């Protein structure tokens, strides 16, 4: 009895989780201009609007530039930190790691406002670059969390063995460590990419006159006329993120199969 009621609750909870997502395509293909039931009829107009929208195209391009840069930067910084954290002992390590991981427990508005204050104080003009700086700061702790798992499962004697067999420290890193942490690096890159692509408040504060995808969406949500197009955009984003997640899962499984490690669950 208890089992089935818990299962029923789980089902309701999934409905709660997915309701907003499921409604996206419902209204994206609905020909009514007002987001309300009953539905009017089927249309592709909103998707047509979407792909014809040049401001949106520019915002998307900006967001992709920022997200790709953030992904590369924070994963690189994450590799350094995860390697240092899992392989070396040094005095003051908890403090150093604490500072680096701090953005995880800071409200985003604090990160946004402190960065804004400093960037204005040193006279750096707000641009896509300043958004990349902010997003990298935010995404690095997540990258480290993912990479830590990958690096800490490395047996230290593997690198000693390579070193012992005549390789240098650098070639050991390239031949042994890097291939073994590649699934972690891919997960980290995807995660940072997604965090950056979706981030609003830091971008909103640091982008200056530039527009990113979330800034554009936020600006359009005020206009009821634009909402059906936003629904179409949301639908596309959902599909894109599912494809991205499936890819990530595929790489993770392949990495596991290659090294024969045990499956310990999702890449989260």
């Amino acid at each position, binding site marked *: 009895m208890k089992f089935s009621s818990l299962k029923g609750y789980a089902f309701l909870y999934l409905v709660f989780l997915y309701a907003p997502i499921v409604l996206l395509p419902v209204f994206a293909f609905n020909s009514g201009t007002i987001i309300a039931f009953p539905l009017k009829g089927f249309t592709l107009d909103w998707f047509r609007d979407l792909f014809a929208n040049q401001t949106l195209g520019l915002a998307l391009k900006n967001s992709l530039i920022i997200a790709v840069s953030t992904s590369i930067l924070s994963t690189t910084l994450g590799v350094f930190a995860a390697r240092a954290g899992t392989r070396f002992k040094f005095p003051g390590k908890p403090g150093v790691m604490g500072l680096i991981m701090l953005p995880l427990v800071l409200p985003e508005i604090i990160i946004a406002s402190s960065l804004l204050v400093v960037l204005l104080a040193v006279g750096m003009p707000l641009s896509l670059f300043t958004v990349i700086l902010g997003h990298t700061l935010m995404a690095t702790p997540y990258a480290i969390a993912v990479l830590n798992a990958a690096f800490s499962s490395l047996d230290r004697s593997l690198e000693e063995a390579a070193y012992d067999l005549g390789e*240098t420290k650098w070639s050991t890193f390239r031949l042994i460590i890097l291939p073994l942490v590649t699934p972690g690096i891919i997960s980290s890159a995807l995660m940072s990419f997604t965090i950056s692509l979706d981030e609003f408040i830091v971008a909103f504060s640091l982008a200056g006159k530039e527009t990113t995808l979330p800034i554009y969406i936020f600006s359009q949500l005020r206009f009821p006329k634009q909402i059906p197009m936003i629904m179409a955009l949301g639908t596309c984003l959902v599909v894109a993120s599912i494809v991205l997640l499936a890819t990530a899962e595929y790489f993770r499984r392949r990495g596991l199969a290659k090294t024969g490690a045990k499956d310990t669950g999702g890449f989260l």
Partner: protein
Amino acid sequence: MTQLNAARAPLDSRAKMIEFHEVHKYYGDYHALRGISATIREGEFFSLLGPSGCGKTTLLRTIAGFEDISSGAVLIDGKDMSDVAPNKRPTNMVFQSYAIFPHLTVGENVGFGLRRDPRSKAEKAKAVEEALEMVGLKGYGARAAHALSGGQRQRVALARALILKPKVLLLDEPLSALDKKIREQMQVELIKLQREVGITFVLVTHDQEEALVMSDRIAVMFEGEIAQLADPETLYRRPNSRRVADFIGVMNFLPAQILGEANGHVQLDVGGLGRFEVTEEQASARASGAEPVVGFRPETLTILYEGQQAHDREAPATIDEVVYYGDMTYYDVKLDGVAAPVRISMRNVFGRPVLDVGTRTRVAWSPGALVLFR
């Protein structure tokens, strides 16, 4: 019969392969190696034996170059190694975890160290195949390394280290992860392999039996120091301290009273055994406390059955406990006049009954098999 027991050049006449000169190692305040000095000869099978934390693995890693020493010197083949990195040393290592690269095949693992080798691809492939054959893994080259069993990983690790023809092969507890049967099989194979390739093997182990079976010489280590360095037989028969005696096998101890010394002999009075004398050679070991004790191994005593005569001496005793092991029986017997029982091991022979607890008996012993710790 293989060349297991083949006659080889005596150790002393061979070249020095590894020399430790007053090696010290500190980790912060912790003094891990306390002035190690020793010489390992060419072609020797040398073991570092001791409990965990005694510094044996640290000492092994100073040979490989994974640990910097704080003072002193490590020489390999006459050359000071202090500024030589691990990848430039003529040593290769078999790791406790085997450290098989999980993303490579068996063949790629074995051939890993040949990357910088100028030989042609075909020649390298041949070398890999030969190395695999040597460890009994012929034809395994294309397999995924992570799919191997423990014993097979061990062999891959050996082949991978030996393919570079090092002057010294270092083995860090290579058999500890294997189960008993495979471990015993691998012990024999390792000895054969060492005879075959003829290079120096340095083995770290905490298993005294393994060290006794495999080694030419053994260094027993406690707390960063070598307590005794000797061949297995000397170590077993003439441990130089009560601690070494305790660590290697089982030894019985009885308090002894020293009556006097004369003409290279020490006169003793031992409760349960009576008065007798031992040679100075037998009396060179250190006791752990102030009280002198005599020690003897369980198999140096024999329980006498009805009608049997002792070759040397005998002492009356009562059987206190019997533990039956199939091929052996362990008896704890109380010598008359001694409260603590001593252990005696007897091989079970057809037609000879296992004795019951409480049986009165006589124990045959010989002063020559004793060690005096003082």
